[in-house]
């Protein structure tokens, strides 16, 4: 009998500062018990509770893709007590991971289609997982073209910059990386994500869009997608809410009758249109 509240013990094997303001770090974990690694079977879009004994737990999207082997990555923004403590931890420290939780981006159900990914700020983490998964040789041929639109405030706030450059070169994907304003040394796109989306004008035919970002970005991207002819059931969003149990019991993350932790975090726009905006 599994205890759903009991985290798997993990050790931090790598810590990387991701952004210039040092508020985002990527942590790489390895499981202390190999059998846990096997049990931790996940898909891009799922999340897990990072658990620090004595401090608490925090639900964080999984940034790595299962195709990367045992590499388990989380990119964490320093915000509250758990993430604050996590940012103070070092390679070799032991903590807990509980999961994987929730549903995932329904990629398998949309085999053969073109994929448009739109991300803003540090919401890109689970979409990084998706991108890596899509580019895996086993998966790449199963999908059509891949457009990746991603924006951050400044070049220094862009996550995974090196990787994205590599994707553009080798992965056969179209990356549209943008920053809010002109910056010395920045030669790429500038402008907000909705504007760039408008320029890219992703084609809705035989395609799905995965959108994840701050509410303000989603609010202004939606009309752009509408204009391009996207239907609500082609667009998938990932939500976040305060969580405790992560398994659909404790009652706080619900949006209408759906629990973000168990029924979500990925919902189609069509589903969300039938639900209150309690997120």
């Amino acid at each position: 009998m599994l205890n759903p509240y009991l985290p798997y013990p993990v050790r931090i094997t790598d810590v990387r500062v991701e952004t210039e303001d040092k508020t985002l770090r990527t942590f790489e974990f390895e499981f202390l018990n190999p059998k846990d690694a096997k049990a931790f079977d996940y898909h891009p879009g799922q999340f897990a509770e990072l658990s620090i004994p004595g401090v608490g737990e925090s639900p964080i999207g999984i940034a790595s893709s299962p195709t990367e082997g045992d590499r388990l990555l989380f990119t964490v923004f320093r915000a509250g007590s758990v993430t604050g403590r996590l940012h103070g931890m070092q390679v070799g420290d032991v903590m807990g991971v509980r999961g994987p939780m929730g549903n995932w981006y329904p990629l398998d159900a949309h085999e053969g289609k073109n994929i448009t990914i739109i991300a803003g700020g540090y919401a890109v983490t689970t979409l990084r997982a998706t991108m890596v998964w899509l580019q895996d040789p086993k998966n790449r041929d199963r999908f059509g073209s891949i457009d990746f639109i991603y924006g951050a405030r400044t070049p220094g706030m862009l996550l995974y910059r090196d990787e994205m450059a590599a994707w553009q070169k080798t992965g056969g994907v179209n990356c549209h990386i943008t920053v809010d304003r002109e910056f010395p040394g920045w030669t790429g796109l500038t402008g907000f994500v909705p504007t760039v989306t408008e320029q890219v004008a992703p084609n809705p035919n035989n395609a799905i869009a995965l959108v994840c970002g701050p509410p303000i970005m989603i609010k202004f991207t939606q009309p752009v997608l509408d204009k391009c002819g996207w239907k609500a059931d082609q667009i998938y969003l990932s939500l976040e809410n305060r969580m405790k149990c992560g398994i659909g019991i404790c009652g706080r993350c619900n949006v209408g009758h759906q629990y973000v932790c168990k029924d979500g975090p990925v919902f189609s726009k069509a589903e969300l249109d039938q639900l209150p905006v309690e997120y």
Partner: protein
Amino acid sequence: MKEIELYEPRIVAFFCHWCSYGAADLAGVSRMEYPASFRAVRIPCTGRMSPKFILHALRQGADGIWVSGCHPGDCHYGTGNYHSRRRLELLKNMLDYIGIEEGRIHFSWISSAEAEKFQQMAIRVVEAVRGLGPNTRLVKSVCSNCIPPVPTCDTMHECYEPLEEIPGAPRPNGSCCGGNGL
């Protein structure tokens, strides 16, 4: 009696930066002897003293509390200690009323020049608290007997003796509580 003498109380002392903290310094550099059973917390003024600090210290296991600041009228900020005087008087009455012994909570006015008064007060506070013994009231205990000790097993499965299957027990969903061979 012997046991009580051996016991070293833990006292949390809140000293105003402008006076009592200086008095402690002065007592130190003047080589005055005073008991070391308290941990000093520097506060900007006794006016900053919140009842929360006192309760928090007691909850964390302090045996006594000592708050010391500038003499009335001498507050660096004008009126901080006048305000805290009212607050602390009332708080002490209340804590006394609910049974936190009178001798655990101490307040004093000590200017930065009064090293001698500081020394006497320190002795007085420590002796009063020592006489009362360890504080058990309001202490938040995370590891008391009411909670079982840290188990040695890793999974719930190892912790539990296998539950008897209770076939008739009502299970509306039937799926997991006992079903599925979980």
